[in-house]
């Protein structure tokens, strides 16, 4: 049976209003506004350098934002223990004291996380074949990642951030991670924020997707709403073009008299049968493909705007 840790699943656990984070020359977060309801698995997607880690650092009080408002579990996370001891952040290259063994790392985690499940941690360590008494600096890259994954899952924190947690983990170990994540989330619903490049692997686990590019939120929607929200129409260019007229085009490819156009639109039954009559092929677009298309479209728009600004300036 489900034993929710938290009583108000629908109340937002994370809220950001116009949050900016500037480093010297770069804007890592550009007016980010988000509201995340509790007890869901979120996917935080985007290219390297898009702002995923910066966003998670701001949310976990590890970095301060330049402007805007950040609320996590009702308060500011920055130097706020009443928030920080309810969240768990597993970084891509999580550091541990060199002399620690995985067992010692688990014991310190047990002191910090109030919902820590020591038996679960040992069970997971066994499944990942982690040498519990070997010093962490002697572990392989994959074993080091496994230590982070075990702590992230066994912490059962109200909000758990996994930032690319599986560097060096092989396909089998990643599958164990996904399986245990779904299972434990079912038994102990909580908020999980998973940043990943392996979109195809995690797509089915996500309830909600946030796509970030150049510090801006490009997509913020339920995974189920996204599936089927774009299609690729392929056929004779003379028939494809009139068919997609008026729809939002994400991508266009042509080959001789053939055209393949990806549009952001769920087609109606009528449109589908019209397409069939015209001899057009309608192919679904996966979450991963859509993320790629959206990111590239955002990049195009960005360079077009930059070029326009430059024109303005040079006048």
């Amino acid at each position, binding site marked *: 049976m489900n034993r929710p840790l938290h009583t108000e699943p629908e109340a937002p656990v994370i809220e950001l209003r116009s949050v900016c984070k500037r480093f010297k020359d770069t804007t890592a977060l550009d007016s980010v506004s988000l509201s995340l309801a509790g007890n869901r698995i979120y996917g935080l997607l985007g290219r390297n350098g898009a702002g995923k880690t910066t966003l998670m650092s701001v949310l976990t009080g590890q970095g301060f934002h330049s402007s805007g408002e950040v609320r996590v579990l009702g308060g500011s996370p920055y130097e706020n223990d009443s928030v920080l001891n309810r969240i768990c952040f597993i970084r891509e290259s999580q550091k541990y004291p060199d002399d620690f063994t995985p067992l010692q790392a688990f014991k310190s985690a047990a002191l910090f996380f109030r919902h820590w499940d020591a038996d679960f941690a040992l069970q997971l360590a066994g499944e990942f074949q982690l040498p519990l008494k070997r010093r962490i600096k002697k572990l392989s890259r994959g074993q080091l990642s496994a230590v982070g994954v075990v702590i992230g899952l066994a912490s059962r924190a109200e909000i758990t951030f996994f930032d690319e947690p599986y560097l060096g983990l092989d396909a089998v170990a990643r599958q164990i991670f996904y399986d245990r994540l779904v299972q434990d989330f079912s038994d102990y619903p909580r908020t999980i924020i998973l940043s990943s490049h392996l979109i195809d692997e995690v797509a*089915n686990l996500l309830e909600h997707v946030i796509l970030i590019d150049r510090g801006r939120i490009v997509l913020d929607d339920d995974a189920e709403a996204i599936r089927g929200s774009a299609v690729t129409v392929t056929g004779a260019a003379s028939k494809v073009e009139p068919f997609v007229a008026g729809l939002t085009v994400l991508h266009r490819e042509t080959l001789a008299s053939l055209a393949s156009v990806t549009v952001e639109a769920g087609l109606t039954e009528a449109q589908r049968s019209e397409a069939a009559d015209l001899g057009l092929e309608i192919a679904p677009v996966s979450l991963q493909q859509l993320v790629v298309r959206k990111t590239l479209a955002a990049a195009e728009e960005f360079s077009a705007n930059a070029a326009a600004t430059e024109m303005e300036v040079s006048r």
Partner: protein
Amino acid sequence: MIDESRPIFLQIAERIENDIVSGALAEEAQVPSTNEFAAFYRINPATAAKGVNRLVEDGILYKRRGIGMFVAAGARERLLARHREDFARQYVQPLVQEARKLGIGAGQLTDMIKHSYTATQDLTEGSVAQ
């Protein structure tokens, strides 16, 4: 198992429907829990719940408080009727379109269907008997 590009809750609902139509899930039989579906298909539990709830709203499944989900009486007949209605659109239309493209006439197509029907009769009778 799961097709990446269509809403997953629809696919879960369809799989349960197909199991009811084939008889794999008998009427009044208990349906796996949403957490079991989530673990088996490796999908988000909320998504699995959405698929199951759709069938509850449809009256195909019903909830017994504290026990779980069960297949409603008469669910199979209702699903069969609905699937028969969808049959022309889902299967016959594309078949005819493809036949037309290949220059296969209506008579020839009918013969092919009759032939295929006879050839697979044993299999079909097998599944009806279930």
